[in-house]
């Protein structure tokens, strides 16, 4: 079956070459172009999301100062440069939504799943190029709707990125729950549709279109990560869709799924019998797997980058695959740790504590395996490698505090404080964004046929790494002082007065780190047009994508797709001249190994 499809694609490829601007760049069905579309859109959204964080950090550091620049950016939301509490909440909400979904889900997994799945498994393209194109355009449409929501009269959604009802269901409760919230839900619905189309495509492609010899245990860990991520997405995103639809019904049709006995702004509502906690369950049933939908691709990329640049096999390949599967399985039965203090039955609290802390075991295995891969390596510090090592550091630093937050008894007192903000930004935000940067630096030559500038990459990494820790490490301490998140200002509580210095430090690092990203943006666009032309295999890597020609061609390989004879991690293997042995290299006589 698989062979037949391959033949069809080959013949399809041969007499289908007339491309114009529209079919090549806009409505492309080529996975490489779609990957790049995801990346550019994700980067645009990333700039918006990071910029928002810089704005609200200004407010947090200097709550009573007036910044003229705020008025020119936010208009009526910052009269005379004093930020309005409503827009503060809106910025926080949209920052979270954009970073979690648009940058780290679509931008990360969308980019690299599309780019790498066909290239690394040896396929001409995705199983369905058309669905793939649709998946991008749903994402693009959802981005447009999300950006549009910033400009409505009552402001964008403002109830936090989790948009818990009743706050998000009642326009009377806050301005952001008006039209902005409706657009948020429309945007997420489109987003989920796109994500599902993409994920189904990835799964089918990986199962059916692997080239000869590419057994599952010879897949690069990137592909394993994308594969499991796609399965997570298919199983969990529909639940978020149902949560969003029910919320839409409550908002627009007067149903009471999440609403009961409410009097808001002096008005008694008719709703009865609903429960906001139902929404929380549905939301976090996606929300927690979502953390791994974000993280696993980053870990997959890191596995690949660390092995290649240590010039060593990834340590414990099977354990790495096993831990991906274990993490994925566990991620479905831990959502309740976001809800320890919602009034959920305390017995459930115990169960979720148990399952949550179990995740630390496969996570620890992954961290140790990365570190052991470095051991006795011959480390080549490419910018991608620096970001991957950075990822391991943040994954450990942020993962450890998960042991505290996953423990129901401890969560009581730090729930929704800055301790949580520190934890998830380090373990999920930083790790994933570092993985994404590593991926961009590593596969840039595969995407744009040119090399990115190394020195700018180094500078970018160090400035980012320092400011990332500078932003999020101090937040643990404000959390320990009991400072709640999503406070527009701490000035109303004298007990938090002594935290203001920390807030100023955090903001300075945030602005510094944000500006440092300009180096990356410049490097990216500059190299796209003027970087040195890439050789075929610049990192001397084993995986199949480096056997394709530098010029992009529809169908990826001229002539036959190479067959695979070994696993992707034969680096520095004894008995071979070079310190890498591409997967397409036939085995020597009596050669041991995979």
């Amino acid at each position, binding site marked *: 079956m698989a062979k037949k499809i391959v033949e069809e694609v080959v013949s399809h490829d041969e007499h289908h070459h007339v491309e114009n601007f529209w079919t090549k760049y806009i409505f492309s069905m080529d996975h490489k172009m779609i990957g790049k579309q995801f990346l550019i859109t994700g980067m645009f959204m990333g700039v918006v999301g990071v910029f928002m964080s810089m704005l609200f950090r200004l407010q947090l550091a200097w709550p009573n100062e007036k910044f003229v620049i705020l008025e020119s950016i936010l208009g009526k939301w910052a009269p005379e440069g004093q930020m309005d509490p409503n827009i503060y909440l809106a910025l926080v909400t949209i920052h979270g939504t954009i970073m979690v979904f648009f940058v780290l889900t679509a931008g990360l997994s969308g980019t690299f799943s599309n780019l790498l799945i066909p290239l690394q498994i040896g396929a001409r393209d995705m199983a369905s190029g058309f669905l793939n194109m649709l998946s991008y355009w749903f994402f693009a449409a959802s981005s447009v709707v999300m950006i549009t929501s910033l400009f409505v009269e009552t402001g964008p959604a403002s109830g936090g990125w989790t948009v818990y009802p009743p706050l998000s269901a009642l326009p009377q409760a806050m301005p952001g729950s008006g039209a902005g919230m409706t657009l948020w839900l429309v945007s997420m619905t489109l987003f989920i549709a796109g994500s599902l189309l993409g994920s189904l495509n990835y799964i089918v492609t990986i199962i059916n279109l692997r080239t000869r010899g590419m057994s599952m245990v010879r897949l690069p860990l990137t592909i394993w990560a994308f594969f499991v991520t796609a399965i997570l997405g298919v199983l969990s995103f529909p639940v978020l869709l149902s949560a969003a639809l029910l919320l839409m019904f409550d908002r627009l049709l007067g149903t009471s799924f999440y609403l009961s006995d409410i009097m808001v702004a002096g008005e008694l509502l008719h709703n009865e019998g609903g429960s906001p906690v139902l929404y929380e369950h549905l939301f976090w049933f996606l929300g927690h797997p979502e953390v791994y939908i974000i993280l696993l691709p980053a870990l997959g990329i890191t596995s690949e980058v660390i092995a290649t640049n240590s010039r060593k096999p990834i340590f414990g390949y099977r354990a790495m695959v096993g831990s991906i599967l274990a993490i994925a399985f566990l991620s479905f039965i831990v959502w309740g740790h976001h809800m320890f203090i919602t009034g959920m039955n305390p017995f459930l609290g115990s169960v979720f504590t148990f399952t949550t*802390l179990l995740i630390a075991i496969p996570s620890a295995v992954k961290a140790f395996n990365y570190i052991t891969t470095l051991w006795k390596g011959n480390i080549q510090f490419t910018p991608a490698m620096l970001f991957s090592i950075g990822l391991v550091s943040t994954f450990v630093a942020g993962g450890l505090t998960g042991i505290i937050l996953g423990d129901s008894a401890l969560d009581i007192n730090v729930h929704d404080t800055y301790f949580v903000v520190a934890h998830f930004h380090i373990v999920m935000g930083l790790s994933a964004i570092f993985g994404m940067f590593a991926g961009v630096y590593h596969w840039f030559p595969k995407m744009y046929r040119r090399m990115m500038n190394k020195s700018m990459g180094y500078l970018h990494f160090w400035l980012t790494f320092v400011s990332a820790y500078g932003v999020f490490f101090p937040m643990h301490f404000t959390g320990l002082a009991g400072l709640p998140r999503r406070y527009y200002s701490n000035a109303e509580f004298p007990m938090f007065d002594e935290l203001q210095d920390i807030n100023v430090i955090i903001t300075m690092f945030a602005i510094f780190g944000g500006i440092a990203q300009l180096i990356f943006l410049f490097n990216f666009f500059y190299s796209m047009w003027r970087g040195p032309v890439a050789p075929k295999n610049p990192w001397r890597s084993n995986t199949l994508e480096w056997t394709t020609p530098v010029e992009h061609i529809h169908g990826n390989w001229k002539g036959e797709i190479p067959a695979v004879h070994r696993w992707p991690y034969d680096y520095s293997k004894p008995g071979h001249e070079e310190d890498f042995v591409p997967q397409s290299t036939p085995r020597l006589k009596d050669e041991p190994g995979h």
Partner: protein
Amino acid sequence: MTGLLLALVLFLLVFAAAQIIRIYELSVKASNRDEYVVTNKDNSNQGRLMLVFGIALLVSFVVMAIAWNPLALPKPSSLHGVEIDRLWDVSMGLIVVTFFIVQPILFWFAYKYRGKEGQKASYVEHNNNLEFVWTIIPAIVLAGLIVYGMTTWSNIWNPELDEEPIVIEIYGKQFGWTARYAGSDNTLGNANVRLIEGVNVIGVDTLDPASHDDIVTSELHLPVDKPIKFVFRAQDVIHSAYMPHFRAQMNCVPGAQTSFQFTPTITTEEIRTDPDVIKKVERINKIRLASGKEFYEYDYLLLCNKVCGSAHYNMQMSLIVETEAEYTNWLSEQKTVKESI
């Protein structure tokens, strides 16, 4: 005019940048090197930077801990809070130790095994013994933490009490808190937002006899060393009643009733004489004095910790723990529902 000047400056900047880039490109061309290839020098520089960063990370961690740990919440003022803090210390201890083992190894390896020309990496695929060890050790440690955590959690929910807890309702709405004491029968009368009318701001059912002795207040007074059972309600959106000094927090959910129970152990008077608290208050007042704000006296607080709208950041209620005599006295001065509605 300013716009024109700005445009000119911008143009000149871009022009200058373009020139610098061109010079750079020419120099790269002249030196005939491939800019992206990682050289021996790069590896040794970056490896060293890794080591420096690793050390700096650990040092800055220590510095932050010394400088900012005193800012943390003072000792817990509740029975179960002591247990939580003990569990916290054990967990945090393990975390910090792990952090100080794993991070140095990571950065040390990055430095130690930085690439050198002509060197070849060792071909090590896996090692079952090693992998077994680092699966089983975390598993054992976590098993301990899980059991400890679950025990603590269960103790919090099922405390051993030798007396009936005092029932108090905490009622949240945008953007303030109200308390309702159950009165002499220690039973709260029914209530529903549908019954809100006039002075009956939290919708007490005045037809329910149990409600007659209920007492509605805007301040929260608690007797020391008496178990308190809080029940929580919300009028409009989800709020979260956060009492950080007691290590207590519970969401207030519209249409549902939640509850949490604890025993305060230190009165407001007493905590103000705690040496850590005195130092804290001194630091805070120094800051407040400099910015001309009024003098601060240490107080317990109930604050909202679930985003609930524009004034979420200022939704608070003062909370006073006092002796039983003071408490009874204060309560007897408050009006019951029957008297006020």
